[in-house]
């Protein structure tokens, strides 16, 4: 099956690329939206052994309809376990959950994420929803993958507010000192994959049918060229349309 990836919608492209990163993990802390959809896609294809954990306390759901809240009926329905948020966050802090997926309104070169305010904290241009569990996941999860639609306004030199701390030079030492997770190591957009280095994100590979220029367009960080191509797993490609939220 030959597919032109440009014809697939951006959310699905993110989910497909990111799903491939979940291979080998056993437990995944997910929020509603693309993170949840990505994990469902991975579980349905290349990583059936991954357990989806929602902060509402539901574990093991595979929502069949669009979910609005991490506590929605589709998340509770036919889950394997319903515990409480305290228990899930305790497991998170104890290092018992393998990998997390996060998105945000803004991201910078060190993977700092902002979901709090655009502008200053006291007098913002836009006041957003706040951390929720994002700060907690970004601090504590051993492995963190960031998912971002390729909207240049989201990619900034420095986020207006660090809701969820990144890694690299910014926080690596403090992360060791405070026994935190190692912070974001992978960034997936709808066109490319980036990996974290001490000096920030490097372009790792580009989705088939997209150019280097498209992959880095509007991103304010210095990014070297990469010729590596992302090939979507056939099983993922064939099942992406069946994931409820996508």
């Amino acid at each position, binding site marked *: 099956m030959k597919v032109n990836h440009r014809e697939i919608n951006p959310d699905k492209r993110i989910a497909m690329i990111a799903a491939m990163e979940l291979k080998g993990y056993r437990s995944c802390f997910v929020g509603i939206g693309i993170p949840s959809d990505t994990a469902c896609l991975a579980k349905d294809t290349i990583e059936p052994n991954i357990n989806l954990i929602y902060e509402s306390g539901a574990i093991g759901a595979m929502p069949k309809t669009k979910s609005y809240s991490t506590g929605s009926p589709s998340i509770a329905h036919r889950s394997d376990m319903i515990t409480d948020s305290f228990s899930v966050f305790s497991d998170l802090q104890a290092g018992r959950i393998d990998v997390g997926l996060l998105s945000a309104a803004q991201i910078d070169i060190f993977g700092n994420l902002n979901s709090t305010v655009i502008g200053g904290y006291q007098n913002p241009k836009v*006041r957003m929803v706040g951390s*929720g569990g994002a700060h907690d996941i970004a601090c*504590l999860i051993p492995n963190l993958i960031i998912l971002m639609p390729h909207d240049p306004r989201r990619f900034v030199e420095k986020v207006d507010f660090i809701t969820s701390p990144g890694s690299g030079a910014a926080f690596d030492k403090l992360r060791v000192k405070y026994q935190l997770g190692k912070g974001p190591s992978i960034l997936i957009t709808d066109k490319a994959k980036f990996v974290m280095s001490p000096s920030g994100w490097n372009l790792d590979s580009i989705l088939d049918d997209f150019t280097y220029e498209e992959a880095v367009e509007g991103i304010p960080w210095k990014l070297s060229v990469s010729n590596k191509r992302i090939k979507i797993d056939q099983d993922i490609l064939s099942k992406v349309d069946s994931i409820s939220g996508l």
Partner: protein
Amino acid sequence: MIEKLSNLHDAIKKNVSSDDLIFIGGFGHLIPFYLTHELIRQNINNLSICRSGADILFDQLIASGIIKKVIFGYIGNPTVGLSHSFNRAYKFNTIEIEEWTNQSIIMRLHAARMGIDFIPSKILQIGDLPENIQFIKKIISPYTGQEYSAIPSLKPDVALIHAQQADKYGNVQMWGIDGDTVEGALASDRIIVSVERIIDNKEIKESPEKTIIPSHRVTNIVELPWGAYPSYVSGFYSRDDQHYISYDSLSRNESELERYLNEWVINVDNIELYMEKIGKENRLSLEKGLCGTLDES
């Protein structure tokens, strides 16, 4: 046994006062809309409200002008958008905020539930949040020298929660998504619970594992079927996602929101009117939805 059954008016009137700190239950599931709306109808003001993830019920309380302070980890309309009334109040400085994260709010309640001042935690040590919580302090482990943030306890005066069922003595049974509802209730001095139905104590004893708050901790039980609408109650009715979506657009406009609050809060001053307002057809469709009584999936 002491009977804990009460009508809605008295349960709120006798147990909630101006200046109280109130924990409001419901994590997507079991949000105590109708019970909490009574605060607006009785115009009890200067209230502080807290929970981890807050949705449109917080927005409605803020819009009604009875809130002094919001203590939260998240505030919005999940997936749909922002909390517009919160954002207006924030912009015009008509409320105080104390902004945490979901985990830290839950740990604050957990500390209160355990009867201690603080719990050590690894979070809130890096990023911009810690410096905006001006009173947060550090603590050093006396065993390893490890540096932690000291998450201070948060002990609400009253918890308002909704559950599936209770007996008249106050044994409360709940199932499905809990989130931080039970944690917040157990942390609070007084606990007021609205339920879909009152059941016999005999039925409680048939499944004591479903009981999540013991009778001696409960202040009052109020029977309010459909009291969690537009959120949902596992085993009773599904979530009215469309209501949340409509709320996003109408709440952007203050006069439209005022009309909504009159229609859905002020004028529906008994639960039968609320059920009527939801509508027979919509109720049937929600009973057939995921997790509803008539759900056959």
